[in-house]
């Protein structure tokens, strides 16, 4: 479907003077406590992925029949689950599972999206039309259902989840990159570079690629948040890593049945997902604002 957002309707008329004293409100992003907190949380997550024992020395799978369904308190900061496993330990060790799925899926989506988007943006009009319609058609499938379709074909599990989410979010990235490629290709500075007598490959390498690929890491960070949300949702439905793996979505699903007596089993891993996505979004937006500022 053609998104008609932000279509330039007219060229700016010649000779318009802009009064710089004109009071336009400028919203400027500057590092505040929110950004610092988000950054700190992400650093913590990376530590939890690389070396979970540093944060939670216990065994995430160790059941303790004597300490079942303990509420949060001393000894078990976030309580224990129905098998007496420490929820904090499981959440920390689960970071690796959940984030790996998100990062790997995003890597697939972004890599594929950038390559296909560039291809569509740089090739001939007919090929572009065909690719764009395919992106449109793939975007027409709700992401969760597309992922479910893939899992129906390939069966549940971590690998399926990664590929499913990767494929389901790929069209979005491809469309963004294609759009950006067209904008850069038609921009004044690329046209100007033609008048310098630069060859087409050189133009693409020197001007188009860097300006298209530059913002991609920002996209990836924001996309990562979405991928993690999707992964948690699919795991919750039982399509991801199977119990007793401490994946956050799976933990939530397991804890559901004890919601009435032990809310912490579900809510704590859920909050870990929320905090991750919020932090990624905060950092991503700040980065994007700085990026836009630099390009203006």
């Amino acid at each position, binding site marked *: *479907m*053609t*998104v*008609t*957002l*932000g*279509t330039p*309707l007219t060229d700016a008329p010649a000779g318009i003077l802009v009064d710089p004293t004109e009071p*336009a*409100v400028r919203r400027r992003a500057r590092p505040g406590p929110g950004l610092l907190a988000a950054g700190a949380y992400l650093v913590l997550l990376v530590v939890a992925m690389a070396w979970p024992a540093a944060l939670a020395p216990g065994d995430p799978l160790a059941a303790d029949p004597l300490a079942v369904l303990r509420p949060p308190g001393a000894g078990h900061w976030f309580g224990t689950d129905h098998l007496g496993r420490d929820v904090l330990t499981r959440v920390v060790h689960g970071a690796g599972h959940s984030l790996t799925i998100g990062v790997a899926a995003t890597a697939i989506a972004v890599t594929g999206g950038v390559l296909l988007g560039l291809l569509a943006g740089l090739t001939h009009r007919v090929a572009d039309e065909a690719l764009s*319609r*395919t992106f*449109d*058609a*793939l*975007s*027409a*499938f*709700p*992401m*969760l*259902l*597309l992922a*479910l*379709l*893939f*899992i*129906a*074909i*390939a069966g*549940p599990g971590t690998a399926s989840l990664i590929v499913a989410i990767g494929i389901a979010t790929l069209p979005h990235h491809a469309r963004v990159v294609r759009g950006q490629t067209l904008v850069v290709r038609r921009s004044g500075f690329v046209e100007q570079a033609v008048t310098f007598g630069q060859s087409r490959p050189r133009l693409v390498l020197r001007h188009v690629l860097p300006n298209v690929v530059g913002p991609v890491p920002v996209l990836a960070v924001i996309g990562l*948040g979405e991928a993690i*949300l999707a992964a*948690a*949702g699919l795991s*919750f*439905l*039982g*399509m991801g890593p199977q119990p007793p793996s401490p994946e956050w*979505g799976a933990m*939530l699903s397991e804890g*559901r049945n004890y*919601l*009435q007596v032990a*809310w912490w089993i*579900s*809510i704590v891993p*859920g*909050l870990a*997902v*929320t905090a991750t*996505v*919020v932090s990624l*979004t*905060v950092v991503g937006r700040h980065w994007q604002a700085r990026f836009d500022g630099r390009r203006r």
Partner: protein
Amino acid sequence: MSSPPVRAVARRLGTGLVVLWVAATAAYLALLAAPGDTVDNIVGDGADTPQIRAEIIADWGLDRPAVVQYLDYLGRLGGGDLGRSYLLQRPVTEVIGEQLAPTLTLAVAAAGLGVLLALLIAVATAGYRRPWLRRLSSGTELLLVSTPSFLIGLLLLSVLSFRFGFFPVSGDQGVVALVLPAVTLALPIAGLLAQVLRDGIDKALDEPFVLTARSRGVRERSVLVRHALRHAVLPAVSLAGWVFGIVIGGTVIVEQVFGRPGLGQVTLSAVTTRDMPVVLAVVTLSAAGYVVVNTTADLAYLLVDPRLRRS
């Protein structure tokens, strides 16, 4: 006056059809890509003899060339025939038809509530007044957008149902049982739409035509509603397809959380049992729904923005 808008409408309808066709083809290819023989899938755990296999191949027309099968599939799809469920041995349209109503009710309620909430929040917090309120609401929106819907559902359940008993824990009996699922689905939508709408209003408020309107002595509220909001609605309308996807995907999860019957349950059991015709039908139908919603949104765009009516 008449010809450019007609052409614009026709173009959008045409694009919608093309997307629909590509989507149906993609779904068909997915079926071919599925591991294991179609016959294996149909046989399932039932009796397996060469004779039964031969019957199945004849029954399902699996001996015809791939192109013919594909065209036949498209033809049947166009005629509204979504095939037969491997598992239930019933037409898929029947299986889905039975479960469509509760899901659609939930989806429409959630989408409506989400849009309404977003409008209220955006109008209340746009502009340069009350910065603390802005910060509060944009923080809340970020939280809502970033929270998995099942967590919202579980939180609502544990507080409003378990703790206070305001709402039933599960089921689909009447309107009361609809409230929590609909709210659960609506909150993330409201969060995102409110952000988009407020950004749009703020951007419109910086435009010269707003200065002109103010210079006429128009009150601030009228400036907001009569001028700025219409401009803000444009980018929000283009998110209609996205909202549809979120709602349809969301119903699968929310039905699971609240134990509601519906398409979500059908889909999940079809995915786990690899009942491909049902999975494909749900996926194709939702793609069709997306295309319809998105095309409608595009046409609504033409209605709101006269500038797009020239071809």
